[in-house]
C-alpha cells in the first residue's frame, strides 16, 4: 500500500496556479526527486503534503485515510507524522541542539530517559554528538544541516520531505551530505521526497524522478529514463 496518495491536487495563489492537477503515490521506503526550476510548484507540493497549505481541489491520503480535501485540512500538520527539512532549516535559535531535537519528543510525551537516548543516538548518526549543548548560531552551515536532519528524523517519520536543503552549501559539502542522507535512508527505511532544481542532485537522491513545470507534472520515470529524457529534450529553463 502507498503511504501517501495525492489525487489530482491543485493550489491557486491569487490568479496564479501554483500546482495544477498533480497526482503522486509514495510507497514505503521509496526515494522520489521532485525536479524543476524556481516557481514550478515543487515546494508547494511539499507544503500541501505537509499540511502547511490547503489544496483548492483534489485529495491527499496518508495510509489510506484522507488528510486533506478541497478547501480544508482534515488532519493538521502536527498530526500527520511527516518529517520535514525546510529550505532555511528553521532551527530554533533560542534552543540548543538538544532543545531542538527534544521539542517533538516532548510533544509526544516521550519519557525523559528515552528522550535523552533517542537524541544521543540520532546525533551520533549525524556525527553531531559533541554539539549537544551548542546553539545553532555557533554552528557552520553543514553542521546546521545535519542538526535539521536529525531533528526531523529523531521522530522516526515514515516519510521525510526535504525542500532544497543543500542549495546553499559548497559542492564538496553538498555531495558529502547527500551521501549521509542516503546512508540514513538506507538504515532507517523512511520514504524520501526530495525537492531540488539541480539535475545531478535529483539523479543522486531519487530512484524515481518527477519533473515539474508550470505547476504540472511534465514527466515522470526512473533516473535512467530521466537522463535520456534530458538528453533528447531541450533543457528546462
Amino acid at each position, binding site marked *: 500500500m502507498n503511504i501517501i496518495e495525492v489525487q489530482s491536487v491543485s493550489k491557486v495563489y491569487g490568479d496564479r496556479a501554483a500546482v495544477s492537477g498533480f497526482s503522486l503515490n509514495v510507497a514505503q521506503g521509496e526515494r522520489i526527486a521532485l525536479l524543476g526550476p524556481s516557481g514550478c510548484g515543487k515546494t508547494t507540493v511539499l507544503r500541501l503534503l505537509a499540511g502547511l497549505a490547503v489544496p483548492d481541489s483534489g485529495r491527499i491520503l496518508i495510509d489510506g485515510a484522507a488528510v486533506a480535501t478541497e478547501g480544508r485540512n482534515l488532519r493538521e*500538520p*502536527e498530526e500527520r507524522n511527516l518529517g*520535514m527539512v525546510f529550505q532555511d532549516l*528553521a532551527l*530554533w535559535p533560542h534552543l540548543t541542539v538538544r532543545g531542538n531535537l527534544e521539542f*517533538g519528543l516532548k510533544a509526544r510525551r516521550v519519557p525523559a530517559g528515552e528522550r535523552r537516548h533517542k537524541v544521543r543516538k540520532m546525533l551520533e548518526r549525524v556525527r553531531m554528538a559533541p554539539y549537544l549543548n551548542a546553539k545553532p*548560531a*555557533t554552528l557552520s552551515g553543514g553542521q546546521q544541516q545535519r542538526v535539521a536532519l536529525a531533528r526531523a528524523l529523531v521522530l522516526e517519520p515514515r516519510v521525510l520531505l526535504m525542500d532544497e536543503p543543500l542549495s546553499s552549501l559548497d559542492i564538496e559539502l553538498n555531495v558529502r551530505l547527500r551521501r549521509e542522507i542516503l546512508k540514513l535512508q538506507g538504515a532507517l527505511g523512511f520514504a524520501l521526497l526530495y525537492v531540488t532544481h539541480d539535475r545531478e542532485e535529483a539523479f543522486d537522491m531519487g530512484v524515481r524522478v518527477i519533473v515539474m513545470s508550470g505547476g504540472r507534472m511534465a514527466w515522470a520515470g526512473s533516473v535512467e529514463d530521466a537522463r535520456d529524457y534530458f538528453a533528447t529534450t531541450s533543457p528546462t529553463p
Partner: protein
Amino acid sequence: MGRRIVLWIVVAVLAAVGLAPILIMLAKSVIVDGWLSLEFYSRLASSPRQWTLLGNSLILAALTTLLTAVVGLPLGVLLGKTDLPFRRGFATLFSIPLVLPAYVTAVSWFDLLGRDGLLARIAGAAAARETSNWLFGLPGCVLVLFSTFLPIVMLLTMVYLTTVSPRLEEAARLVGGWPRTLRGVTIPLILPGVLLAVLLVFLLTLGEFGVPSFLRYDVFPVESFIQFSAFYNFGAATAAAIPLALITLGVLVVERIFLREKTYQLRPAPQGVGRPSIELGPAGRWGFFAAVAVLCLVIVVAPLLVLVIQSTSPSVYLDALARAGDSLLRSVAFAALGATLLTVLGVLTGYLIHTRALSCWRVVDSLTIFLFALPSTVIGIGLVSLWNRPATNFIYATPLIIVLGYVAQYTGLTSRIMVSTLGQIPPSMEEAAQMAGGRWFRRFSLIIAPLAGRGVAAAWLVAYIFCLRDVGITMMVYPPGMETFPVRIFTLMANGRPSLIAAMCVILVAATVIPLTLLRFVFRPARPV
C-alpha cells in the same frame, strides 16, 4: 483546534471589554429624546466651524507626525545602532516627556517661555513676549506634542532595529557603506514598525485636547469635550467623537494597502555573537553627540529643569510625597497589572492579526485601533454605563474597572507592536514546530513567544508608560479613594502651590524612569535572531 478556541476567547474578551461600552455610547448618540435620530450627527456635519476645527486637528497631527518621524527615526538609529557615547542615558531622557501628562509639559513651556517666565528673567520682557506669542498657537502645540510623542518613534525604531538579521546588513556593507546599507536594507526592513509608530503619533495628536486648549489652538476634540463638560450630553459628545474614529479607520485602510508585503529573514549568521554597530569615528561621534545633546537639552532638560527649579526645596518634595499618599504605589501597581494584561492580550491579538487565523482578523485590528483613537471620556462613560450594576459591583467598585479601562483603550498599542514583531519571525519557525508534532499552545509558548521576546518586553514597557500616565480613563472610573498619582496631580493643580505640583511631577518622572532603565536589557547587543 486549541488555537481557535483560545483566539475566540480573546475576541470575546475584546468584545466585552472594548466593544460593548462603545456600542452603548453609540446607541446614546443616535437616540434624541427617546427617538432614533441622527440629529447630533447632522448638526455636527452642517456646522462650518466643525470642519475648520477638523482641519486644524489634521494640520496639527500631520505636522507633529512629520516632525517626530523625521527626527525620531535617525535618533532611534543613533541610539540603537551606533557607538554614540551615553546613548542609553539619552534614550531614558528622551522618554521622560512621554511619561508626563502632555498638559504638564505645556505648562512647563509656559513657565519657561511665557511673558512672566524664566526667559523673561534672563533675556528680558521683549524676548519673552516674542516667545510667548509663538508658544500660544500652532507652533507651541507642535513643540509640546513633538517632545511628548518623539519617544514613541524613537523607542519603536530601536526595538525593531534589534530584529534585523545582521547577515542582511553585512551583505549590503560589502558593496556599500553604512549610509547605503541603512537606506537600502535596514530601514526598509523595519518600515512596518516605524510606520506603526507614526500611526500611533498621528492618532494621539488627533485626539489631543488638553494641550491645544491651554495653548489656544482650537481643535476638533473640543466639541466632544464641551458636550461632556458643559452640557452633560453623552449622546452629542459621542457623536462628536465619531469623526475622529472614522478618520482612524481611513488611515488604517491606507496603511493596509501600503504595507501588504511582509519581510522574511534568512538563516541566522553562522558565526558571530554581536550585531554590527555603526562606528561613527571620532569626528562623527562627537558631532552627533553634540547634536543629540542639544536636542535633548532643548526639548527635555529645559522644561524638566523648570519643574525642578519651581519645586524649590527638599521640604516641598516631602510635602509632595505626603500628598501623594499611597496613590503613587497604586499607580505603579495598576500600571504594572494593566501592562501585563495588555501584553498577554496584545500577544494573542497580534498573533491573530498577523496569522489571520480567524476570519474576523480585520475587524479585531480595526476595533483595537478605533478604541485607541476614541477620547477616553467616551470609553469611560461607556464603561460606567456597562459595569455600574449591583451584579457587577465586584468589578466596578474595585481597581479592576481601571484596568479594564486600560485594556479597552490601549490594546491596539500592544497588539500592533506584536504584529510588527511577529512579522520579523520567519513562518518556517512555527511550521517546523508543527511538523515536529507540537500542538498550538506548545508552539506558541515554546517557539513563538521566546522568539518574539524583545517585542513582548517592549510592548510591556510601552503599555506600562501609557497606563501610568493615563488620566482620561482613570478619572472617569476610579473607585473613590483609589485615585492614581497623575489624577492626584491634576486635581491638586486647582489652586495647588506651583512648587508642590512641580515636585509631584518630578516624582512621577522618577517613578517611571526605573522600569525605563529595564530598556537596557531589551537593547543590549545580543545574539542575532
